[in-house]
């Protein structure tokens, strides 16, 4: 499709920094989006969460930018900014009125080259407090908030880079030192380990000059340490039971599957949609609509650089046993693996995916991030059509094949029940 064919230019500076430029002059806005190829996967035992803590430190000012001024300069320009950390990568992004492009390149290059001289123990202590509170607010104090980390810890083998949560364990947070932070920067925040995308309203010649001006003299560090992650297989099924401060019981079921962009990855996305993506999806219709044994249901494929898994989550209605939900879910999976899905279900899913691709083109910031995403996993930023084609290619057979390949294997379950052992009457 033409709309999904994105014009861009990609090149590399001598120090290894990748640059992607996508010009789009509809709005007087420009978005800058940098991916560093480091995430929580790159952490060591005992220092979980440091990639994310590091992301926080990147907002604490650098050699030429006093603390608080990173935010202030951008907000003063009418810009917005943030960053995020995942298993595989850390990103930083800003959206500003186009005439402030140079300001952003100055800020991003200053922290890429000269973060270390401005680091202090005081800043570190402050941000350790902040990320501790972030963890408490978003995980420990949320209903079912610890489910994710319990699941991945049990799903992935000990030491696998996806076996601990990106936010990090509370006990590790107290152990971060300036030395840890410095070392993380040296290992992973080299220009040769990053890709900067500039998207929106700008003059290409001018943007290239500015990138050259601010980034070309940043020295590359040694090559980032690359990870070796052997593939794994769960030996047997495992059921974990936990009592938490919640009102309703909830079941989680998870199977190891494929990495991002591996052959069945897109079919697994479609399976998720056919199971739970709409009112007419199999599990939603049966569990939530017809039988009313679940309050909500979701099923989705998570895929990263080093591994992937498929998860199903269902919350039981009051007085409904989890075993009943489990039975129904397995019955439906069996049903699909024997009889397959219908052409109509696949078409419904494909049409939803196709239109969501087009809707997503509206926001220049998410477009810039998507270009970086494709470049990171596929080496080609303009992969919207390639990506869509993966879904177009899915058939009744590929859906059936991927179910048979993965859902007959061992899996992990987590059952969360209220503390008093009884569900709400």
């Amino acid at each position, binding site marked *: 499709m033409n*709309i999904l064919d994105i014009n861009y230019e990609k090149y590399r500076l001598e120090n290894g920094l990748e640059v992607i430029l996508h010009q789009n002059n509809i709005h007087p806005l420009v978005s800058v989006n940098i991916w560093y190829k480091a995430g929580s996967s790159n952490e060591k035992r005992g220092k979980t969460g440091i990639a994310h803590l590091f992301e926080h430190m990147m907002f604490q000012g650098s050699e030429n930018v006093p603390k*608080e001024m990173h935010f202030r300069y951008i907000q003063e*320009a009418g810009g917005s900014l943030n960053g995020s950390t995942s298993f595989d990568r850390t990103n930083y992004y800003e959206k500003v009125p186009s005439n402030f492009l140079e300001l952003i390149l100055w800020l991003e290059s200053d922290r890429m080259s000269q973060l270390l001289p401005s680091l202090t123990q005081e800043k570190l202590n402050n941000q350790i407090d902040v990320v501790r509170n972030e963890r408490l607010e978003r995980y420990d104090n949320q209903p079912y908030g610890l489910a994710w980390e319990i699941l991945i810890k049990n799903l992935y083998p000990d030491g696998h880079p996806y076996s601990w949560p990106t936010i990090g364990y509370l006990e590790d947070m107290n152990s971060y030192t300036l030395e840890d932070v410095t070392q993380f920067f040296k290992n992973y925040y080299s220009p040769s380990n990053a890709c900067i995308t500039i998207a929106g309203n700008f003059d290409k010649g001018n943007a290239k000059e500015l990138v050259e001006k601010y980034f070309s*003299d940043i020295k590359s560090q040694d090559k980032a340490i690359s990870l070796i992650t052997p593939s794994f297989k769960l030996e047997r099924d495992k059921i974990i039971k936990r009592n938490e401060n919640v009102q309703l019981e909830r079941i989680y079921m998870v199977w190891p599957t494929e990495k991002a962009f591996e052959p069945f990855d897109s079919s697994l996305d479609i399976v998720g949609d056919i199971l739970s993506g709409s009112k007419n999806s199999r599990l939603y219709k049966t569990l939530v609509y017809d039988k009313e044994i679940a309050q909500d249901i979701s099923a989705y494929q998570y895929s990263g650089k080093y591994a992937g898994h498929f998860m199903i989550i269902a919350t039981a209605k009051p007085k409904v046993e989890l075993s009943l939900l489990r039975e129904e879910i397995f019955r439906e999976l069996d049903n699909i693996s024997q009889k397959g899905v219908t052409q109509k279900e696949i078409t419904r899913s494909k049409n939803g995916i196709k239109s969501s691709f087009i809707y997503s083109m509206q926001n220049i910031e998410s477009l810039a991030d998507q270009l970086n995403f494709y470049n990171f996993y596929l080496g080609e930023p303009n992969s919207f059509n390639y990506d869509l084609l993966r879904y177009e290619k899915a058939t009744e057979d590929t859906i059936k094949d991927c179910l048979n390949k993965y859902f007959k294997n061992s899996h992990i379950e987590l059952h969360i029940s209220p503390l008093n052992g009884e569900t709400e009457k």
Partner: protein
Amino acid sequence: MKLDRSKKPSPSIELSFVLPEVEEFKLNNALDVIFVHRNNLPIIRLNLVVNCGSKTDPMNKKGLANLFTMMIDEGADEYNGLELMDEFDMLGTNFDLTCNNDGVYISLRTLKENADRSIELFSKVITKPLFDEQSFAREKRKVLTRLIQLKDDPEEIASSVFEYIVLGKEDAYSFPITGFEDDINNISIEDIKGVYKSTFVPNNSALIVVGDISKEELSDKLNNYLRNWDPKVLDIEKYKSKVKESPGIYLIHKEGSVQSEIRIGHNSKKRDKHDFFSRTLLNTILGGQFSSRINLNLREEKGYTYGAFSRFNYFKECAFFYASTSVGIENTGNAIKEIIKELNLIREGVTEKELEFAQLSTIGKYPANFETNRQIAHNLTTKYLYDLPDDYFHTYLDRIRDVSIEQVNKAAIDHIHTENLVILALGNKEKLIPQLREITTDNITELDYLGNEVSII
């Protein structure tokens, strides 16, 4: 030559920003259509706003508007609820429903190539909902289960109980949109049909359309598909404020909490064109963004929290002001003291530099508020809900620029006070009480998660 990085670059020449052109017209059935034509992508968004949110819920039937919203897409014309959604899904069209205090909102996002069929289906939902007993019983059970689930959500409990205290139990705006268990049980399918007949009518609504369609085509389609949606004489009781604030210190006990949720504030005057812009800038300085006083203090200086903010919460007919954060439970008392300190300090005045910063950031980010169809539709919804003047968006930047430091300082004195605050903390009681005792010698009122009094401490 080595680059001198110490110098902050200046902006290049400013690019011009052109506001989207808004056209308004009326359909044959008196429905107001607010339309923006945009053809950068082959997509269209429709938002129907009906002026009948939870504020219109009758006594003992709190939660009616929300349940009505859940029912409206459970079948229309020849389709039952599942079939209807299937029709939308096969087109790749997104159909969404929400309800808040001031309105019921029905939105549609469609590709241009499917616009006709999508708008036809959207119109069926509006003109021919089925409201069958079986769906009603199911959706009702879903809400009742949702009420049970809400007990798990500390942020939600703290916010809704805070509103209850700040506005008082009698006011039409003070209760949670999802309602209460007894009230939900009181609601019948006839009540749902009653809402549809009395308030869900074209002359009590506006339709906002943004996207790739011509005005003529749009108007033809709407006049055709919505032809059976007839205007009615409205018999809606005019809002009478029953706001009655109960200042004091409150706590809600939650077993096992590792954090506490804090809400501090008071009721406030409703949105008013005379000082809306100075209040906006005032709050930008105090707690409206990352670099505001409250967040810099509580997060970047003290490390008590992941984030803290303040806001004027404007409903159509009333408003309140509050600061909000969640902190490690041991810092509850400290955080409350710091917030009160900031409220006192802002009343002493802001600096020229702070005002300039707030103005620059508000002006600079304005174009980014019109980037997506959803954002434009949202802005136009706000204009409709608050009866903003036609030149509102065109004069916005000048109105921001014109605000003086005297006006901001007056807004601080007029709209923020620290006597008679409502202070609410939710968390583990044993840990909260000693910290709250340091703040007050007065009574501390313990409430349950619905805002009912449990005890006086």
